[in-house]
């Protein structure tokens, strides 16, 4: 029997399900399969079979999936009811009443996940200070249970006013309903959020209840499937705030599995940064439809405690009060479509050609010119070595599609291709500025970590645009997110709203309490603790989250850091007292240190060393660039741009004036 020490991470994305494994001998395996949205576990088992990993050797199975977000966006969750404080059953339907689409006078607000006839009220009331104003009327509960039974619901959310400070009424009702309604999933709001704002907290509880039965079914099917192929491993689920938790815990608060792949990409980049000793890094994750970025400052992965599902500039979306890694996403990726509007203006994205029909050069019927087509036409991508030469691209189709854009703009096709890329890169640069300059950071202090299929292709251009002098491209950039899951730190988060003047708040006691709540979610003692306070100037609404200093004068340290951050982010500071609004504690049990290893296996044919003509546009025009297969680079060898580094699922462009080398871990390092 082989030693049971293989560690497997499987990440389900919209298009592909990725597997990365470090086996008992420390060797790396990767596999990819098409995702199977109708039964997600099928692709998981398929990709495991393809990987050749011995199921019996798997010790830890780490998993990120789209099961939660799919259930919400497709509205395929459970028939869910809401039990709330008397007088407030319409809160879920009223929402916050905002109209983000200002001039659309036929705007339709988000439809609540619980319709009115499934929203029931109970007599009880607690004040904002946590005093009981009206005791819970226990005599109503049997009737409520009967109504819920008659309504044939599968799940119930219980959300009472001010349960963020005094959850006893909610807890009692949840307990009674669980007893009276066996088989019905009951979620109380305080179990998923201890933050104030009744609509947001109710919606969080409702969505958690709504997805719970779906998630339970899925995780059970997956566990059974894994068992049936001989996997007997610890099972972990990826969390939206980074890190993992046991399947058991994920079942109790499934809403924390909302985001996985993109989050794993950021935590993987942070882990890579720790290994390489990078202080501040910017992630750049470019896929087919979007570009995503996040700023990891001093090694800290940024987390928001309020996240919106489906929010756009024209739609309010659904808020959830769960910690989610702060990622800025824009609709510009490889498949983004270039269009000319009625006034002759160019737009790239957010419309995407997706995987089907895909960019015009795929030859699968795509009529629209995309960013990928522009990259083919400028020679930045090699039409003959796409996905390692496994897919043949049609340059003519790309050219025909781009000619239509060029006509609309009144320029030559080549010029249109350059313009599309210039525009796309400018859009991506705006996203990078959003997480740096607009928050008071200088991008030149950052290292760019680029991954996703299209990250390495645009990284050099973005670095030049923003004055960034170092870019790191990890091995297997297309699998990087799944790779990041391998680390598998177990994490737990607790957030507690607590409003009061900073000067008179016992901050240490508050943090101890929140830390206890977080620790209760972990099965082992934490190996690292991060403590944060949400603070604001008294009289202000918006808060800044400030890390709590580990040593020194706590209050003075918090005030100083708050003023500094406020000045940096908003060019604004006041001589006003501070108010505490919430405390957050992040605990982790360190997983393994991911061994970054170069992927030099030869299952994909190597790109021959040579040269090709590449259009570098404003960075030197048409130049003969050196072309190298990534595997052919030796550690210590420095190649000067203009050059192109090819690998199976990605292409790295290096501009004139930049150099590229391969470090001892197999990363490509571009320097200016």
């Amino acid at each position: 029997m082989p030693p049971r020490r293989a560690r497997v991470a499987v990440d389900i994305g919209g298009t592909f399900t990725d597997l990365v494994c470090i086996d008992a001998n420390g060797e790396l395996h990767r596999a990819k399969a098409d995702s199977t949205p109708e039964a997600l576990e099928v692709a998981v088992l398929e990709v495991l079979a393809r990987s050749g990993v011995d199921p019996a050797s798997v010790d830890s199975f780490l998993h990120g999936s789209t099961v939660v977000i799919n259930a919400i966006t497709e509205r395929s969750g459970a028939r869910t009811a809401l039990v709330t404080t008397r007088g407030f059953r319409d809160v879920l339907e009223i929402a916050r009443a905002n109209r983000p689409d200002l001039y659309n006078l036929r705007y339709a607000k988000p439809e609540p996940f619980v319709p009115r006839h499934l929203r029931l009220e109970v007599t009880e009331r607690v004040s904002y200070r946590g005093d009981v104003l009206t005791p819970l009327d226990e005599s109503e509960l049997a009737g409520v249970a009967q109504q819920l039974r008659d309504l044939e619901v599968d799940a119930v959310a219980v959300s009472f006013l001010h349960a963020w400070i005094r959850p006893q009424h909610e807890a009692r009702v949840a307990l009674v309903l669980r007893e009276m309604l066996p088989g019905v999933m009951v979620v109380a709001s305080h179990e998923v959020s201890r933050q104030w704002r009744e609509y947001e907290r109710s919606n969080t509880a409702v969505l958690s209840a709504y997805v719970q039965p779906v998630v339970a079914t899925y995780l059970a099917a997956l566990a059974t499937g894994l068992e049936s192929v001989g996997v007997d491993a610890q099972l972990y689920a990826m969390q939206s705030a980074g890190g993992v938790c046991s399947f058991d815990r994920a079942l109790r608060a499934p809403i924390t599995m909302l985001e996985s792949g993109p989050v794993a990409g950021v935590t993987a980049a942070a882990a890579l940064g720790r290994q390489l000793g990078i202080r501040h890094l910017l992630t750049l994750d470019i896929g087919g439809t979007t570009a995503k970025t996040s700023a990891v400052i001093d090694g800290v992965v940024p987390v928001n405690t309020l996240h919106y599902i489906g929010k756009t500039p024209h739609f309010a979306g659904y808020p959830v009060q769960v910690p989610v890694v702060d990622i800025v996403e824009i609709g510009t990726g490889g498949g983004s479509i270039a269009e000319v509007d009625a006034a002759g203006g160019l737009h790239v994205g957010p419309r995407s050609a997706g995987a089907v029909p895909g960019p015009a050069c795929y030859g699968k019927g795509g009529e629209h010119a995309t960013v990928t087509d522009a990259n083919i036409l400028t020679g930045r991508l090699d039409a003959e070595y796409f996905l390692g030469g496994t897919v043949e691209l049609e340059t003519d189709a790309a050219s025909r599609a781009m000619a239509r854009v060029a006509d609309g703009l009144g320029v030559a096709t080549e010029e249109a291709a350059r313009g599309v890329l210039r525009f796309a890169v400018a859009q991506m640069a705006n996203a990078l500025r959003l997480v740096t300059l607009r928050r008071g950071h200088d991008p030149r202090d950052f290292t760019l970590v680029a991954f996703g299929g299209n990250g390495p292709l645009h990284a050099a251009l973005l670095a030049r645009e923003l004055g960034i002098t170092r870019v790191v491209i990890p091995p297997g950039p297309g699998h990087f997110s799944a790779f990041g899951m391998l680390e598998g730190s177990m994490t737990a988060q607790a957030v507690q709203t607590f409003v009061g003047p900073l000067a008179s708040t016992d901050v240490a006691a508050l943090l101890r309490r929140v830390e206890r709540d977080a620790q209760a979610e972990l099965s082992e003692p934490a190996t690292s603790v991060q403590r944060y306070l949400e603070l604001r100037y008294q009289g202000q609404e918006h808060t800044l989250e400030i890390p709590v200093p580990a040593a020194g004068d706590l209050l003075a340290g918090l005030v100083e850091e708050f003023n500094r951050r406020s000045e940096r982010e908003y060019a604004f500071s006041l001589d006003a007292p501070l108010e505490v609004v919430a405390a957050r504690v992040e605990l982790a049990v360190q997983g393994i240190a991911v061994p970054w290893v170069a992927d030099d296996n030869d299952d994909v044919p190597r790109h021959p060393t040579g040269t090709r003509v590449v259009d570098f546009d404003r960075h030197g025009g048409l130049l003969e660039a050196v072309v190298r297969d990534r595997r052919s680079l030796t550690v210590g060898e420095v190649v000067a741009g203009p050059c192109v580094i090819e690998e199976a699922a990605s292409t790295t462009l290096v501009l004139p004036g930049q150099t590229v080398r391969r470090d001892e871990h197999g990363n490509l390092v571009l320097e200016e």
Partner: protein
Amino acid sequence: MEADRFTLDILREAFLAVAEEMFVSLQRTSQSPVVYEVLDFGVGLADAKGELVSQGNGVAGFLGPLGDAVQATLQRITDLVPGDVVVTNDPYAGGGTHLSDVAMVRPIFVDGELVAFAAAKAHWTDVGGRDPGSWSSSTISVYQEGLQLPFVRAWRGGRLDNDIVAMIKANSRLPEQALGDLMAQGACLEVAERRVQELCARYGVATVTAAMHEVLERSERLARATLATLPHGVFEAEDLADRDGVGNGPFAVRVRVEIGPDGVHCDFTGSHPEVPGPINCTWSGLVSGVRTVFKAITDPVEPATDGWFRPLRITCPPGTLFTAQRPAPVAAYFESTEIASDLVWKALATACPDRLTAGHFLSVCSTSLSCRHPDTGEDALLVEPHAGGWGAGLDVDGQSGLVSVGDGETYIIPVEVAEQRYGILVERFALNIQPAAGAGRHRGGWGLIREYRILSDQAILTVAMGRHDAPPWGVDGGAVGSPNYVEIEYANGTTSEQFGKASAVTVHRGDLIRIVTGSGGGWGAPGGRVHDSIVADLRGGYLTLDIANSTYGYQPG
């Protein structure tokens, strides 16, 4: 560097990013709840002639004032230097609305050349005057409405003018908030300046200037292109504006809209002269109200610039409800701005059914409640708009509980936050279901009921609601909606009349204020409503069986 067309496209997006950044900066740093919760503010970037090239708006009502404020600044102040910031709230001059809306304008220079302007206008919580919160529904002249700041420099060459600061401080009941907003607005203008200077350093002043020109031209081209898709002809509407808060009215108002291939002309001639109470608006308010609906029927999504509105012409003689002259009271000007929107909307509803609905509850439904917080002993002032019911569309029911056309990305205050901050007890927050109101083939959406129990010894209430006297209109046989109102249940068991306007009413501990907004109008005769929709409404408790029978002709089974 030559201004190639891709650079122009890239700069077009960059100007939007500047406005967005200004918007977030101001929202995050403001001290006024009306700014950071209600988002009653607008920011923008204008070219050197004062034409707005990009803007960030929290509410619809800022489609006129920003560019006007910059242009008036240019006319009045001829010796602008880098680092100057001009402050104005003059309601009757360029960009003016009411005194609470304070506009600030900063010229942006690059190497001594005037390249652009940054402007921000925001509702300050208190600028002095007769009433706490500065606006009321019963002033009879602007001199009761607060401190006037007629195009004065708050910063001169980058240095804060302490004389202006001292005047603001002395005039506001909440000087920390007022000065906090002065600083927050100043900071957001500085952010814009920095960004524009960066763009000029990168692309050159000539290119940035050319890009601004192109943005305006492009907007105009797009707007003109949409005119071809609109029905051409003359459309008219008339209505009644609610009473003015000091005992007069209602007042007849009218519009004649002419849509042709070259433009849209809205003529308000024949509308009632300016009135003694504070519901008058001035030119900028009228322009904003009309532009909102023009934007809705042309293209709601494209960024709004001053170029977009070049095909729109507005006519209205001076001295009407929509074009009040000094010293007419204007504290509740937003009521007439909305009426201007609503009139054009009503004239065009059946002509543009893919863009417009039946009448909605229309009013910002502003209330202000001033009390001493019973737990902290500190003064608290709750100024808020209320959400209500929207009208049905040709093919959809109306929306329930949505802020009015004059608001926008405006968030109502959570119950849990309101109780903590203002020391009131919210006893109910619910849909105001009036099954017969707004009945139709498609029915209007519901308004809301929000109840405040007073826990302090006393509190002062001011209310300015429109659509109390005349309910929202229906279309094509759809029923009218229901009115907006406030009533007070006193601790002694008596209840006040329902009212739409009230100024500085004193209430006491134990009294309950009930704020009620109306349903939108219906579209199409109720008899045409499909059976399934009636059944669904009955199930949801949106409809009673007798109204289902009497109004909709519903037979169970």
